[in-house]
């Protein structure tokens, strides 16, 4: 019962945050909406006893990524008016059509009786063991993807620095 109430409240918050991201005129409010959604997702993870995932969600997404988003938004200046001209032609019509198709498919599935809510699987891992379990999996079975991901991140960081520092703009600045 408590879980249901919690779910309804948090789900409402998550949807509200998502809608804020789409409709907010001010990008800072959009970022805050995204943070709200990410937080609600963390609560869902806690409800499903995935404490580690929840903590990582808050640290990485709500803590680091969103802070950087805000940082960038503030650095480039939020007071400037947004450019509302659409660069992609027909994108509204395209998105509308796509949305209609999705609703139709979902409707057909629901009407045809092929629709089912996701049932929680019987918990195989003890709640207190998630950290250890994830750690073991990461460092045994998934060691290659894990290391590859970290390599990818380092390459991305190095690439960003390379673009920012050693591009042609750098030389211009030194000349000026």
């Amino acid at each position, binding site marked *: 019962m408590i879980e249901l109430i919690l779910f309804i409240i948090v789900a409402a918050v998550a949807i509200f945050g998502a809608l804020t991201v789409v409709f907010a005129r001010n990008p800072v*409010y959009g970022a805050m909406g995204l943070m709200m959604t990410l937080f609600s997702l963390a609560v869902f993870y806690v409800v499903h006893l995935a404490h580690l995932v929840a903590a990582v969600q808050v640290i990485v997404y709500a803590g680091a990524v969103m*802070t950087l988003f805000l940082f960038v938004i503030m650095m480039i200046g939020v007071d400037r008016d947004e450019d509302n001209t659409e660069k992609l032609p027909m994108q509204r019509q395209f998105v509308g059509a796509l949305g209609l198709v999705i609703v139709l498919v979902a409707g057909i599935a629901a009407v045809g009786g092929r629709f089912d809510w996701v049932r929680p699987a019987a918990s195989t891992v003890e709640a*207190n063991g998630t950290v250890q379990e994830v750690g073991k999996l990461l460092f045994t079975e998934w060691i290659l993807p894990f290391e590859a991901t970290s390599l990818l991140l380092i390459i991305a960081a190095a690439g960003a620095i390379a673009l920012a520092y050693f591009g042609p703009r750098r030389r211009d600045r030194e000349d000026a």
Partner: protein
Amino acid sequence: MDFWDVLFVAARVVLAFVIPLVAVIFLVWGERKINADMTNRIGPNRAGPWGILQTVADGLKLFFKEQVTPRKVEFLLYAAAPILALIPAFMTFLVIPWGEGFTWEIGGKVREFAFVGADLNIGVLFFLAMSSVAVYAIVLAGWSSGSKYPLLGGIRGTAQAISYEAAMGLAIVAVILFASTTSTDGGTLSFVELVERQRGTWDEVVSLPGGLSWFENVLGLIPRWNILPQFIAFVIFMIAAVAETNRAPFDLVEAEQELVGGFHTEYSGFRFAMFFLAEYTNMFNMSAIAVVLFFGGWDGPTFDQWLPGIIVTFLPLFWFLLKTAAVLFVYIWIRATWPRLRYDQLMNLGWKRLIPAALVWLIASTVVVSVRQFGWPWA
């Protein structure tokens, strides 16, 4: 799960809220008093004996003061920022154990009353999550006030928090790694468990070759706190903690001389009080975590043969608060002594000194832990 269980949980949560609150009252007073002492002044001495009620008086004053709202604010975020500052501050203390707890037979059952808000198995991660969320308050307060200096402070605060969080996290990882060797249960992220593993003395962990066995008697006198093997991690943690709480010499967010107090200038009345409370609660939390990670938490002499039971029950709480107070004194001492860093110096210290030092220390700890666990590779 009957009435008494619910009551116990509620009491724990309320206590986890009240302890930092009361601690902050004394902390603010202590900071002003010690700062005054160190600058040859007297400090607050009007409200109560030695001015001890000064914080209460200030709080009451701020509570009844007019809340001035500057004209250019984004009101929604402006009003939300102080709350966002306060929530993570009090949430953090929930996972910090402040005592050993006791058992009590009531309602037909022997129940345990742990002295911790909630013993999460991911306590350390929870703390890191909360400290990264705490940045939002500064950023939003800086931005929403629609003023230049607070915005600068907010941007500085973001960069500072992200930079020093990395160093702090790495220092904590080294401690957790080390703690995993002192028990057969493997690693842990729970603060309660980390404290449990620091009880006892060093001779229980270290076994020396025959010729040096006399030295074990010396080790038998030294408590098994992490401060000894993890001293470097402690130094890195403390520097990062001071930076995380935006205290001098890292208070670039609210640098009085450059930013005229940053966002503090834009807030008044109760909203300002909330920021103030959050700042000092964070300071208390950081000190408490330093005590839990490095100084054995509530561990200390128990005197259970000489003292009555009720005192023995609450003695760990006393040790915990005493150690926290000692760490807080260092905080205040540093503030009274060292001048503020320039922004580029701050970034250099964070990225070029602390993080490499933390990484090197982490690798060194890993080597030690591996050798203890698996033996020398050539053996």
